[in-house]
């Protein structure tokens, strides 16, 4: 049996699952102003469990609990941005569990606790400005 089924089962026991709808989720542009600063909405949602739509960038580490959420599919994105500013409007996602990689062009909804501000991952050394922590995700 697959682990995720267990979890789903577990959750079903704990509570009636509130089904996630893609249209309820935020988009990454909701959190960034043009100048890359945070929007008031982002500041308001800090430390709350929210859902964000996006795409999983090709993972930097295998068998990890970390991936990068991009607003557009990764393989398209690099060619439409100038390299210097590329792509700082990304989100670092820390999942609750080691996850199975989703192709970069599949839209996903990530649900996690929003965390703002610079943070350097002690294990990978990656610096991120916006994170979703304790996350889970599903295909849209």
């Amino acid at each position, binding site marked *: *049996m*697959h*682990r995720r089924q*267990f*979890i789903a*089962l*577990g*959750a079903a*026991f*704990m*509570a*009636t*699952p*509130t089904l996630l709808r893609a249209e309820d989720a935020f988009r990454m542009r909701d959190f960034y102003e043009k100048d890359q600063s945070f929007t008031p909405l982002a500041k308001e949602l800090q430390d709350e*469990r929210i859902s964000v739509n996006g795409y999983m*960038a*090709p*993972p*930097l*580490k*295998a*068998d*990890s609990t970390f991936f*990068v959420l991009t607003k557009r599919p*990764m393989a398209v994105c*690099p*060619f439409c941005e100038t*390299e*210097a500013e*590329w*792509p*700082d409007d*990304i989100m*670092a996602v820390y999942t*609750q*569990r*080691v996850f*199975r*990689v989703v192709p970069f062009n599949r839209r996903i909804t990530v*649900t996690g*606790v929003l965390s703002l501000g610079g943070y350097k991952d002690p294990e*990978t*050394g*990656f*610096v*991120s400005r916006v994170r979703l922590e*304790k996350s*889970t995700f599903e295909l849209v």
Partner: protein
Amino acid sequence: MMAFWYDLPVAVQDGLVGLMLLTPAIVLGAVVLRGFETRPLLFALVRQQVWLSIVFVALIAVSVGIGVGLIAQERGLRQGTARAADKFDLIVAAPGSEITAMLAAVYLQASDMPLIDGETYHDIESHPRAELVAPIAFGDSWKDAPVVGTTPQFVVHLAESLTEGRMFASEEEAIAGARVPLSVGDEFSPAHGVGGAAEEDAHRGANYTITGKMPLTGTPWDRAILVPVEAVWGVHGLAVGHGPEWDGVVGPPFEPRYFPGTPAVLVRADSLGSTYGLQATFNNDETMAFFPGTILARLHALMGDVRQLMSVLAVITQVLVTASVLAGLMMLTKLLSRRLALLRALGAPGRFVFALTWSYAVFLIVIGAASGLTLGVLASWAISQAITARTDILVQATLDWPEIHIVAGFISLTSILALLPALLTMKRSVIAGLRG
């Protein structure tokens, strides 16, 4: 409520799920055994049929063990290979197979690869967002140990700190991995190529002295010897990466004109975004840039699929074994029928005899499942040891929640199935049973 669940630590979630999976067995046990003391008679019955009981337990243990071992082994391999690639964020190589390049640059499975030239290397090295750029020049060897040319910065990145000695400072010095049978002060002469194709005498006269040892990393680099890349070029009679006025200090910056080339380059960017940016920039007509993590994740997914398929087979085995064990239990209750009839003749409630038979079946199942859990982890441990010995990739066998969940589910399911033989014992005639 959902948020509450996800805010729980993962271990608590796993523990709760495990408990939930075990709940049917626990509830069933509480209901079936309520008001009775079955234990003395249960042990009496087990002792009476001790060999048959052992055979049943062994059957269950082996079938559960296969299922557990598969999961533990897959996880061990995933974690081990991922850990070995941890230091390699971004690899740039000449266009070709990403997997070949990854196996060569990360796992030191050397293969013949085209080189990246000095101009290209210079472009990477001088990129403003690149924090660490180092050549990984493999191809030579000493005995089983690959000799890899690189920079002091890479050694620091890989090993963090040396356990012994100091960094190489000249073309005659080398750093040995933890499992290389050379100590600080030892000298060796490298061979051209690796393994059977190595030409022992090709680099006659080239000698290195070990000046430092790296700590154990649990990666193939434990078996490697790291030398200044200048030395690798020099041994092959090439330019050494620096102009004529070079002061002899190894490491960057390199002079593009005197840079003979390197099969692979490790790149570390200054930020998360730039890591992707650099990959996009250098994945072009002249070079390919890839994340070993991505390639590995793809291989892991493949391995996961194969494992799931095998797990299905393992589950089928478990079901078959359980079915035959329950069939065996029905026969066993025939062997025990005189004792069970005696109890009913004495006036024991039918439910007591039912509870006794059920607890006998569940006793065998629980002991078998627990032994299977141990067996699976032990088997995975043995296989992991063999893999580590062969590849130097530290693969560890661990016991984790997924297999505990499977075993808990197995116990619950089979304890429900065990109601069947227990029910059948109630149908037998007391008189016939008493007469044996």
